[in-house]
């Protein structure tokens, strides 16, 4: 074993980027030192999880959850004590934001504050976990890992109008508290374990979320890139292993060889995707059909004539289209079906999936333009011109096209065959330079277990074998990685800081007993995510105040001990959704097709190759105020309001939200018309609920936004502002005329519109304050 390690270090030094690695090496020196006697022991994260003994602690009364003593003992060992409990208003705002991604209502805060029963915290937490908003919030974290998007990416960035079904599956799984082990099995191998069951089949949308370019001319390369994306995503999201590093060379820091890597790719060798499986009919489908019928009727003649034209040249057009693929792909494409091997099957399935009449129309253009082409004739020129004109004509109806959802769903499939194409180790990751063939196998450094592959009549069974190992009792990584993500979510930083890398180059756990206790308990509790979250939300660790403590700041500046609760900037979606809650505008509908709230016109782009617009704003204004996770995720056009606050980048697995602070964020929050309109609505709501009394209005505003009343200095600053600001607004008037922004309300009356306008600005300002954008 020592020998292997030495070799990998040598390989590292030979690499072209020796200088870069020297830096990485320096930082990780202790972990990577190969000569230490401990090096022969497997890396900590690859050893089995055991149940550690609960440590002795001095403060026996502190713990609420079984893991609390593990936190406390470390705090006590440094001669410190944990922080006092935070007050109830702060706690409920914190817990509601963390569990739901939304601020609580003043009524919820008041009820919790006045609940004297001994199980007040339990009642609160159980209420939070029982709400569908919990699943919406938790789904967002998983969708970040699944690089979820409603479009395929690349330049065309075609819509994937049925991916929302996968998003809804994830929401439902968290709301139903589906065991994490089952959740993983379904996403990796849903088509093998429950063929024909749409509910489970859509789970494989996890695999199907890869970025794709439908116009790729090299289908063999495309297959390789898709598999690469899937294996990298599975490796990092589930195993916390940066397996992708071993694609071009043996892993530089972990005992992970190229052979291990391609053996993982082999599990997916026979995996294809059907993006147009017919879906069960429900309400969304009925709505879609209705919209579609309108469009179909309006465009019937145009489309029929287009089809006629294509039909008249179909054979030649198809031949032309097929010839435009690169050599390797053409080999499969022009082979008679009865001679197809597993790879040919995949290539031809792909060819059919991307070949529609629009693609075939390319032939008309070619034959019309190229006067030297054998197919060139006066007739074809006429057809091409007519087809082009019809396309222009059709474009006029683009706003009639249904944009909400689809009649289909997407799922993995092995095309009804159990034999897989061979997988090879590839020289420096180049798919045109295959080396030895490999079989599906688990990484040798992690386990000696062999996959138990049972082919079915229609599938290789490979992915089921992989899924079973991922969630098997002996897998040392899956549970550790997941509980660490939960910890990262609630405490802003994982016990292992590098949440998707549990390898040697990743961070070491700050408290491995704590991590192992959580992982062990998680599996023992039947992989119940809600139980895990409940134990965190109810823990003494989580209940601590985030107030500044000088002694702790000195002793533990990075807060590794968690002797104060870490305050946190809200995530992009939390900011938008909470403003919607405050303004009373949030549309609480759960699930369904993704929506298109308005975006600035110059961002809509030129459309894709078919000149489909990238964004058609939803006609129904109710759609504009849905929760952020329902906004259509177009890979090439991130929703501006969210993007600036570090939303997930859906091109690859997104492991952790960054927190950056920039002037563009400030511009977004105080200059966006949307935020201003919502502030007007919030001002209206406050006046409605508090009446004419200004002190009562300020109090209500603070209760809505922060769950607390304003302090004395705040009240005087706010009053002084209103006095001065009213004068400023009056002075704006020109020739006695001026426009002002007033609160938006249907019920309330404000006698003085100038004062009301000043109040709108006040509300808008308070929404911009640090207190709103952070949770403490």
């Amino acid at each position, binding site marked *: 074993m020592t020998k292997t390690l030495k070799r990998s270090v040598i390989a590292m030094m030979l*690499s*072209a980027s020796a*200088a*870069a*690695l020297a*830096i*990485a090496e320096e930082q990780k020196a202790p972990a990577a030192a190969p000569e230490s006697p401990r090096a022969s022991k497997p890396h900590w994260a690859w050893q089995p999880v055991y149940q550690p003994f609960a440590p002795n602690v001095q403060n026996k009364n502190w713990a609420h959850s079984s893991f609390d003593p593990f936190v406390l003992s470390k705090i006590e060992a440094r001669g410190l004590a944990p922080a006092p409990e935070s007050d109830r208003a702060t706690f409920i705002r914190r817990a509601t934001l963390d569990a739901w991604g939304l601020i609580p209502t003043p009524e919820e805060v008041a009820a919790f504050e006045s609940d004297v029963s001994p199980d007040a915290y339990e009642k609160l937490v159980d209420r939070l976990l029982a709400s569908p908003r919990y699943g919406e919030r938790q789904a967002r974290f998983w969708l970040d890992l699944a690089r979820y998007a409603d479009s395929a*990416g*690349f*330049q*065309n*960035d075609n819509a994937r109008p049925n991916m929302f079904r996968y998003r809804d599956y994830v929401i439902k799984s968290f709301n139903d508290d589906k065991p994490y082990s089952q959740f993983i099995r379904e996403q990796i191998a849903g088509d093998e374990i429950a063929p024909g069951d749409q509910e489970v089949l859509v789970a494989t949308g996890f695999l199907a979320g890869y*970025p794709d*370019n439908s*116009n*790729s001319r090299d289908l063999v390369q495309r297959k390789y890139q898709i598999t690469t994306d899937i294996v990298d995503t599975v490796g990092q999201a589930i195993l916390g292993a*940066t397996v992708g590093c071993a694609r071009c060379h043996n892993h530089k820091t972990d005992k992970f060889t190229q052979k291990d890597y391609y053996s993982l790719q082999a599990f997916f060798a026979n995996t294809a995707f059907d993006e147009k499986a017919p879906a069960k009919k429900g309400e969304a489908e009925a709505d879609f059909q209705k919209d579609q019928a309108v469009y179909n009727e309006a465009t019937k003649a145009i489309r029929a004539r287009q089809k006629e034209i294509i039909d008249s040249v179909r054979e030649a057009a198809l031949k032309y289209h097929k*010839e*435009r693929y690169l*050599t390797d792909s053409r080999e499969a494409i022009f082979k008679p079906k009865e001679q197809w091997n597993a790879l040919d099957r995949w290539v031809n399935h792909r060819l059919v999936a991307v070949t529609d009449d629009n693609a075939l129309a390319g032939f008309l253009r070619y034959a019309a*333009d190229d*006067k030297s082409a054998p197919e060139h004739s006066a007739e074809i020129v006429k057809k091409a011109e007519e087809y082009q004109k019809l396309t222009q004509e059709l474009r006029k109806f683009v706003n009639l096209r249904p944009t909400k959802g689809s009649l289909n769903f997407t799922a993995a499939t092995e095309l009804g065959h159990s034999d897989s194409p061979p997988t090879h180790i590839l020289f420096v990751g180049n798919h045109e330079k295959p080396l030895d063939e490999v079989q599906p196998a688990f990484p040798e450094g992690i386990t000696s277990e062999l996959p138990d592959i049972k082919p079915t009549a229609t599938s290789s069974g490979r992915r089921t074998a992989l899924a079973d190992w991922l969630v098997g009792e002996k897998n040392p990584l899956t549970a550790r990685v997941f509980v660490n993500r939960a910890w990262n979510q609630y405490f802003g930083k994982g016990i292992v800081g*590098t949440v998707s*890398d549990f*390898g040697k*180059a*990743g961070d070491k756990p700050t408290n491995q007993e704590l991590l192992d206790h959580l992982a062990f308990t998680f599996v023992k509790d039947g992989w119940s995510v809600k139980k895990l979250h409940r134990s965190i939300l109810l823990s003494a660790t989580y209940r601590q105040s*985030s107030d500044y403590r000088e002694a*702790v700041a000195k002793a533990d*500046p*990075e*807060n590794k001990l968690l002797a104060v609760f870490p*305050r946190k900037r809200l995530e992009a979606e939390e900011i938008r959704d909470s403003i919607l809650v405050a303004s009373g505008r949030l549309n609480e509908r759960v699930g369904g097709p993704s929506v298109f709230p308005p975006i600035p016109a110059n961002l809509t*782009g*030129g459309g894709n190759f078919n000149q489909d617009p990238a964004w058609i704003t939803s006609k129904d204004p109710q759609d504009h105020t849905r929760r952020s996770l329902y906004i259509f995720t177009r*890979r*090439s056009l991130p929703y501006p309001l969210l993007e600036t606050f570090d939303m997930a*980048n859906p*091109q690859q697995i997104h492991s952790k939200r*960054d*927190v*950056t*602070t*920039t002037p*563009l964020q*400030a*511009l977004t929050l*105080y200059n*966006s*018309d949307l935020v201003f309109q919502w502030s007007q609505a919030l001002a209206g709501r406050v006046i409605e609920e508090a009446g004419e009394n200004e002190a009562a209005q300020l109090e209500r505003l603070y209760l809505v936004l922060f769950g607390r009343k304003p*302090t004395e*200095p705040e009240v005087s600053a*706010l009053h002084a502002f209103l006095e001065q*600001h009213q004068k*400023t*607004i009056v002075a704006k008037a020109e020739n006695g005329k001026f426009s002002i*922004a007033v609160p938006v309300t249907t019920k309330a009356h404000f006698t003085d519109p100038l004062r009301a306008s000043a109040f709108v600005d006040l509300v808008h*300002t308070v929404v*911009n*304050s640090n207190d709103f954008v952070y949770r403490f």
Partner: protein
Amino acid sequence: MLIKTSRREWLRSAAYGVGGFAVSGMMPGGGWFGAPDANAAAFVDPLAPKQPHFPAKVKSVIWLHLDGAPSTLDLYDYKPELERLAGQDIPASFLEGVKTSTQGGVGKLFATKRTWKQYGQSGAWFSDLLPNLAQQADRLTFVKSSVTVGATHDISILKLNTGDLSPGRPSLGAWVAYALGSANPDLPPYVVLYGGQREPRAGSVNWSSGFLPAVYQGTAFRPGPQPILHQAPPELIGLKQQRESLDLLHQLNEIRSATRPDDSELAARTNSYDLAYRMEATAPEAVDLSKETEATKALYGLDDEATRDMGTVLLRARRLVERNVRFVHVVSGPISGLGQADDASWDAHRQLERNHSAHARAIDKPVAGLLADLQSRGLLDDTLIVWTSEFGRTPYGQSGDGRDHNPWGYTQWLAGGGLKHGVTYGRTDDLGLKTIENPVDTYDLHATVLQLLGLDHLKTIYLRAGRAERPTVVYGKVVNDILA
């Protein structure tokens, strides 16, 4: 906007004094991590200026992407042999190692009606499509041996800008912003300008920050007087009104942060509003051409319909460079009246004459004007201009009068500080299909650009998921032969 002037000096000292923004002593080239700590003592401004690895030759880069891939065979890479063999099949020897996407061979060799001349002391060849740029011949450094990967625009454009064929990696400009920070806190360090009225199709992945924090992504400036999204206050809010609101915001934040004396992240957020308020004035000013002289405007072709669009873009680019923006990423735009689809860019699969005449005309005078203008203002030595494209085009024809994509050999050029001027590096074969000497891949170009900015591409590191990521992935070598 003048309302702000009196406030401005005070704000500058408040924001850049002891209050919150610390320039960290991190390793050159970066090392900022955004993990929120409870007390946030470690929080640093992610855009604080950072020292390069060695003294920089240039302060700013103008990265000029000619979208759609011009045929450099019709602009710079003069091939008499192509004219001689026009109309014949390309000899098989030239196609060796080339994977074409057309079954049954490729089109006949195709020559356009160009006339060619040598210019300047260097005697560089230019076709008649670029009469103005030709006058700047001795300021250019040609790389006539550019190579890349890919047969479709999207993946090769991604590689040109981010170094990978799949989306997800940071663009070159994002690496620069990450490694050097901002040299002017009043403007974003990485700005994108595009021709036309709309953002290029699927453009944003090409100026994305990838796995770097979003703060390093390019800020796309819109055409018109309000370049930044959410630049101006909501419609009914006057500037004085907004200033008062921001003063209140300051007050409210201070009241609450009194109990969190060490929290520099909260302090930075409070300050970011003052920066933003300044940006409301500085960003429109940076792109406001009204103070430019008529002579300058004419130099960029603003007085001519055909050149006004790209002229405006490049004049804006000069103003940004003057204001110390580190990386200006320019994407050429569509030509009005030329048509959609392929003709919206240089993608001349057919009717190359019509396509290239229009696109060359739109850029020739503006880019020549840019070089002359930078020179006369003493800025050229501090600036690097890169003429670049996702690939070139083939010497064999397509559709009779167009050319197909060519990733095997094409011309790009650099101009500005730190370069040997008036030289040509590398060459293609006698027909201009394949590089036969000194190939320069996109990674090498990136390494060279970083080098001129004072950055060693091997040491420009971001740790992600335990992996030391760098701008050139695992490739790249600096093209030392073209450096002064």
